[in-house]
């Protein structure tokens, strides 16, 4: 058992990857949005939030995600989310119809490849 929620930032050329693992709830979500947003330089073209290792998300996590989408959109930066199908996180994203705000991918590779083909 490590921290409840953990964030690892990785920059790949023009794409920033934010891996969030653990459990994202009211205790961790409010600060998480700022931390991720601050790690995305204006020069970056897109942000991938990778939830592959996230075990739990609630509405405060979802609110953070919507907030990120809004802030990136205003800078004309793209947001992609990775959530493995069948996991509770993907289920929640489905329920709140997050795909209307940003595309949700099965894997990080898929998300990155999709970003490349988009350009």
């Amino acid at each position, binding site marked *: *058992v*490590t*921290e*409840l929620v953990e964030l690892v930032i990785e920059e790949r050329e023009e794409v920033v990857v934010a891996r969030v693992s*653990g*459990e994202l*709830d*009211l*205790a961790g979500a409010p600060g998480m949005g700022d931390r991720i947003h601050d790690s995305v330089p204006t020069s970056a073209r897109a942000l991938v939030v990778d939830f592959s290792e996230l075990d*739990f*998300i*609630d*509405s*405060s996590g*979802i*609110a953070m995600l919507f907030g990120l989408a809004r802030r990136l959109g205003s800078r004309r930066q793209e947001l992609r989310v990775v959530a493995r*199908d*069948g996991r*509770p996180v*993907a*289920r*929640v994203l*489905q*329920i*709140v119809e997050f795909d209307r705000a940003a595309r949700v991918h099965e894997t990080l590779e898929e998300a990155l490849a999709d970003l490349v083909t988009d350009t």
Partner: protein
Amino acid sequence: VRELPELFDLGVKARSLAYLFVAGASLGLLTLLLPHDDSVQDLQLYVLAAIAVAVAALIYVQADRISEWQLHLVLAAGTTILSFANYYAGTSTLYPLLYTWTALYAFYFFPLGTALAHIAYIGAAYAVVLAIQDPEGPLIRWLLAVGTPLIAGLLISRMLDRLRAQQLEASESARELRQSEARTRLVLDSSPDAFVTLDRDGIIRTWNVAAERMFGWPASEAIGKPFRALVTPEEFRERHDERRIALVESTDPLATAHFEVELQRRDGGRFPAESTVSRVDVRGEILLAGFIRDVSDSRRRQEEREALMREQAARAEAERVAEMVSGMQLLVDAALAHRTLEDIVSDLVTRVRGVLGADAAAIYLADQGERLVLRAASGGAPGEIDVEPIPFGAGFPGRVAEAREPLLAQDPAPEELPRANLEELEIDSLIGVPLLAEGEVTGVLVVCAAAPRHFSTDDVNLLRLAADRVALAVDHARVYEREHRIAETLQRSLLPDRLPHLPGLAVAARYLPAAAEAEVGGDWYDVLSVPGGGVGLVMGDVAGKGLAAASMVGRLRSALRAYALEGHAPARVVEQLNRLIWTEGDDSQMATLIYVVVDPAEGEVRWVNAGHPPPLLVYGEQLSRYLEGGSSVPLGVLPFPDFQEVTVPMDPGDTVVLYTDGLIERPGEHIDTGMGRLVAVVREAPSEPDLLCEHVLRELVPDGGALDDVALLTLRTIPMADRVRVEFPAAPEALSSMRALLRRWLRHGGGNEQEIAEIVTACGEAATNAIEHAGAGGETPFEVSGLVEGRTVQITIRDYGAWRAPREGDQGRGLSLMRALMDTVEVTPTPEGTTVRLERTLKGKDSNGGPG
């Protein structure tokens, strides 16, 4: 028969014999020179005279080397020469009379027996001479020649015996006198007091070693000088003369006087002295003999006087007192060690009363504001102690405290008594002595005597001694209590005063300080929620005692909490603690510690053990086993020890028992015995942690307290029931705990992982609402209760805040999540709070099924 001493030595005897020979020879020659008978053969006689003179010369020269038997031989030779002379001189001379000389010599210088032998030889020799010379001659001739010296010799012998006896007596008495003088001198010289004799004019005649020491004047310089000029300070000289003359002229032959005087040393230093002077008449000469004692040390003077007085008054009484004083000393030194001030004063007050044989005694102790509070009293009818403080200066004890001196009061007024109930004792006499510690009045000791007894100054002095002991004991006790209080407060502040509320878990802890310990030990424990829904249990023991150990406990505790809450794994947390103690502690600092993480959601227990006794895991039907693995060295021993983390399964209903060595160790016993005893006791114990702790301590801690500090911490994972009801604090951090509990409970209820995740998410939304309703300063907890009925799960989350209508966005999304995930969602807002009821029917079975 007494051996009489020799009057003359051999030299004297030899020389006397030489004179005798010369005298005999001279007389013989004189006879030859005078007209004499023709029958005298002159030539032979000249030769004999010459021989006699030669022998005389020889023995005179050899006088100092001659021996007794040689003298006898020479004397016999003299008799022989005389006999030849008588033969050659015929009967006409007076030579036979010369036998008298040799005989008298024999009697004079030799013992009677040998003298008689010489007489016998004389008689025999002359008989031979007469037989040849004149065989018909009358016997009278022989008788005259031998009888006269015999009678004269016997007379001389008697006379000499008497003389010898007198001389012996004289020499013996002289020796005795010498011995007695030596003894007297010895006594006087070894006396700690100066002994001085003066003649009637005040001139020093005797001056012993102590006087030399006392005044700095050696006897050689002091004797012959006037005492007054040597050691009497100028202003007292006149008085000295008056006293001396008064004594000298006293008509009392045994006049003795005692003086307290001031005297002067050679270096000019003055000192008070006591002298006892006697007038002594030594063969008509008046002498003043005085003993002088230096009493400059006033305490010694006092004590010596007291000792003298006590000795004189009643030796037995003094011994009894001494015994009691020493008894009290013992009490103060040993029995009172490590006891509370309250116990000590109540014990001491009884002891003091015993020592003085008093009817009542009381101890007042001073508080910060110079006021006395009665802390203990003994004697009289039992009654409440009046705790009304008495200011210094007020009442009898107050006056003692103000005076800082012992006070003795006879016939005190009733209000002067320490306690009202002493009135009926008819107290007639009171002594109060201040208790002093480092110059401060720390209290007052009062003793009371009922009529007819009245305390004396002796009692005051004795009580003063007692008060010294009491003051010391009280001071020690106060210092000890203060230190103990500080350490205890510190330690209490370090132990969790309230164990955290852990859903699904029951925790109980006990901490028992050692019964007779002066200082608080370094045992400690802690319970904390760790990220991810686990519970951290800590049990540690810092080596050493007192403030140092307590402060190390404080640092370890806060460091452990910080590392654990950062989410570090147990082994990493313990490594950090080791680094802390290795770098911060001094060389001797060492601590054992066990850090256990119970994860009820995962159903496992993990631990790292740094030299601590292993925890006990109680499982199944009161079975138990020690969690032996993962043991490493204590903290602070190695810079980088290898701490191993061990994990074993832990089922609902299992209990972990952590403890410190004080619980299992007994002097002289192997530790395995104590560990076996703990297993046996736990087998009989109830499973509920609080009751378990009670039972274990009751069985393992001896009556009267443990020898060492004992800490005990137990945690039980509550077996899941169909119904659950738990309160959580209204804080975001509670959410993960709640989820962990619900997961366990839902698993128990038969849900599959998919369903469980969804229900937990829905409940999380309700709980998030509850936390937000409580507001920023929300202290009121929210309650989660659940019920499984058949396949239906009902969960109710109730808070005590105001419901906020779902806004567009976050909260609204929460509500829609709940609705999406559950079959039924009911939100009931009331003025007192909001209740959210969630319901869902479980499918179960396909536990790892795909999305809903």
